[in-house]
């Protein structure tokens, strides 16, 4: 059986950054990246819009440009990678079964980094009634058809969901000569970044219909239209508010689901709130020597954050190869998301690695004038005032050396929201 120090599953931005950091931190540089698509870079390859890299590279790049910088480093350092290769199984013993045109193979790793990304929620997942004609796409599918393959997918479209992907696709379709009739959002607020609402909708005069729902899809062969309705606070249709919009295309951009089917096979425990593994500040999952980063861990809105997180995972995966006992003796302190905070990653602090750490989290609703509080053994260690908080924007706070020095690690670390009085 072929042996590696670190096997990285997924060749998107998370996998590439993790592999590069492992490479830097390993003497024995046997690293393998496994990618199921024909090329490295993952979904970034189809994100040809700008806005990537502002934080990490301090310059504005497109998705393919951002990915290319990492791909070039992988190539330059001679890091081994496989494309068109599907990972079938990962065991808790860190055996990886792969398959490609050359056959099935079992590989062994000292450490594994999970970086499989996410899949899109579909029309079926949100159960929009109606017929099942052609012309219904997920936003990512449409992006692939338009940006990579060069096809036009329709003439008139309605987009369901106003997260960043939905907003960006509204602009993309418009630029391709497809008329976007509306972006329909069931929540009373958009979960996309403010700058995207302005640049992708307002600049093009595309209506954003908040508290609206597509209640029926029409058409027998190709989509012929949708019925939309205003919804109440329980997301139920308000009678009399239904309206038909003629279109031949419906794009669903209704959220991403971390792809953790493989993780579960390896015995990794999943946090239902994030959809990804529970991790500590080394990005170690509950399975020994298995690390996770990127959208497989939790859904990000900026790839720059994915890169930072993946670098941490890659660094500690390398460290695990050299000193696994450091991780086994680890004692964990819980980091708990409370009052108004939907989740926090990492969910644990490993007391063997009390190093400055970024906590990333999302709130569970739109809030105005709040304070984010970090509490430990009854002490408020950090207070951050926020005028506006939305579930669409990932928030973060830093656990600095100073804060760590004031902590009692036998007690939980609590993150919560409070009114700003």
């Amino acid at each position, binding site marked *: 059986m072929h042996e590696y120090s670190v096997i990285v599953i997924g060749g998107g931005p998370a996998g590439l950054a993790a592999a590069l950091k492992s490479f830097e931190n390993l003497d024995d540089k046997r690293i393998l990246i496994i990618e199921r698509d024909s090329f490295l870079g993952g979904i970034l390859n189809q994100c040809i819009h700008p806005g990537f890299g502002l934080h990490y590279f301090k310059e504005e790049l497109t998705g393919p440009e951002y990915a290319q910088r990492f791909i070039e480093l992988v190539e330059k350092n001679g890091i081994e990678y496989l494309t068109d290769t599907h990972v079938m199984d990962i065991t808790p013993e860190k055996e990886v079964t792969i398959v490609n*045109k*050359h056959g099935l193979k079992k590989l062994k790793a000292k450490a594994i980094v999970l970086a499989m990304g996410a899949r899109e929620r*579909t*029309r*079926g997942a949100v159960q929009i*009634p109606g017929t099942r004609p052609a012309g219904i796409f997920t936003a990512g599918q449409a992006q692939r058809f338009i940006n990579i393959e060069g*096809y*036009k997918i329709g003439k008139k479209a309605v987009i369901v969901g106003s997260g960043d992907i939905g907003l960006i696709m509204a602009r993309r379709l418009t630029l391709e000569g497809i008329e976007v009739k509306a972006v329909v959002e069931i929540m009373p607020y958009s979960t996309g970044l403010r700058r995207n609402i302005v640049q992708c909708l307002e600049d093009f005069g595309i209506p954003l219909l908040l508290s609206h729902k597509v209640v029926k899809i*029409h058409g027998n062969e190709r989509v012929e239209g949708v019925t939309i309705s205003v919804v109440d606070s329980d997301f139920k249709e308000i009678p009399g508010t239904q309206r038909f919009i003629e279109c031949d295309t419906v794009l669903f951009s209704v959220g991403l689901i971390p792809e953790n089917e493989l993780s579960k096979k390896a015995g990794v425990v999943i946090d239902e709130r994030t959809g990804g593994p529970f991790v500590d500040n080394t990005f170690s999952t509950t399975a020994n020597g298995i690390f996770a980063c990127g959208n497989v861990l939790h859904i990000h809105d900026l790839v720059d954050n994915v890169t930072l997180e993946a670098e941490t995972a890659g660094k500690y995966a390398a460290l695990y190869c050299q000193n696994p006992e450091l991780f086994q003796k680890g004692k964990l302190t819980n980091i708990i998301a409370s009052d108004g905070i939907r989740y926090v990653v990492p969910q644990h602090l490993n007391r063997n690695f009390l190093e400055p750490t970024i906590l990333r989290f999302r709130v569970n609703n739109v809030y105005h004038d709040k304070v984010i509080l970090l509490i430990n053994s009854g002490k408020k260690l950090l207070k951050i005032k926020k005028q506006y908080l939305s579930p669409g924007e990932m928030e973060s706070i830093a656990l600095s050396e100073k804060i760590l020095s004031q902590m009692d690690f036998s007690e939980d670390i609590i993150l919560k929201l409070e009114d700003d009085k």
Partner: protein
Amino acid sequence: MDKIYDVIVIGAGVVGMSILRELSSYDLKIAAVEAMEDVAEGASKANSGIVHAGYDPIEGTNKAKFNVEGNRMFEELCRQLDVEYKMIGALVVAFDEKEINILEELLQRGKRNGVKGLEIKGKSWVLENETNLNREIRAALFAPYSGITNPYKLTIALYENAIQNGAKVYFGFKVCKVETQNGYFIIYSQDKRLLKTRILVNCAGVRADEISKMAGARKFTIYPRRGQYFILDKPEKEIVKRVIFQVPTEKGKGVLVTPTVDGNILLGPNSEYIECKDDTSTTQEGLDEVFEKAKRVVLTLTKKDVITIFSGIRATPDTHDFIIEEDERVKNFINVAGIESPGLTSSVAIGKYVAGMIAEKLNAKQKSNFNPYREDIKRFSELTDEERNEMIKKFPSFGNIVCRCELVSEYEIVEAIKRGARTIDGIKRRTRAGMGRCQGGFCTPRIIDILSRELNVDKTQITKFGKNSYILIEKRWGK
């Protein structure tokens, strides 16, 4: 005019294909015509996939007869055709005294129909054997010989086997006129094709009444009755082991919760008479009704696990029984109509019966070289690692996984195309590519690539299911 047949079957659903396949064992020139671009495009693609035991239909009816016979024949047929069939048993659960009385009626009726193994089980047995059921359930009728299959895969297999044995199927042939001439029927399609046959078999499903009328045969009415369904993701731990029915009402067998042969969980159907025979839309009310009723049986069901919703149409006849007969006035015209539930189970027995009847009329002999066996496409997901490696050595594309949710390889997709798939849905039903939790999110573009390559047509010509169901409308740039 050279397209003269001994028998033509109208409709390439499970009933039509079952008859065609049985006919292909005789020395006859046979064909079928289908309005859509593929087999199983009507009721046969969207139903519960249950092989019923036969306790449900009233004794003496065609339904009872063909159901019980069909159930007995099913396993052997699926073995011959390499189609999944699992005899997992069914439970009809009762919540109160009144429902328990209905179980008793079903038990007695089943016995009179000749159904074996029926038993009424008490609460403790039910809850011990089906640990996730609602603890309020008081008793259940246990039918050990009930099973599950994949209705469209069975239809495809019957079709392929009939073709292997010399039958011909014309697709996109929507019959719009039937004439008789010198002891022959001439059938015309909307696109101006015509075919000639001595015997005409009407398996037009929900449109069988229209075909019968066109032929000047018996007047009856088919009412379209719609049922809506949920498919849940493959559960990590089994939710139910058997087909779980609730006590039937006059509207049918009610909402069931069952595993599918492919490992998902199926909920549905409800029952609603609709205006339009093609209206396979789902509705919020219908879906809510199904989910609520299913939750009555398994309280822990959650919509989070739903991967798709769909509806199917049953062809409910005003005669309240299957119509399977040569017409009294129009000789050689055979109606096989109103085949609603338990139509899937019955189809195998109906096929044998109708083909036998025709063979007798035409004094046809059994072929000496009839091959009853058909092999399914080799499936990556079902082989051992050694077998997979063997296959990859021979066919490297067997190692190229296209549909990651259902582990479908490029080889399987190409094989499906060789066997007649022309559309995304055709590939989906033959291989399961796109039927997993991501519902084709990742694999649809790759399937379009393969279809376009294998059929040597531009990607803009690839459809979801034929006609105008195009996915991509214009090539803007690139090769």
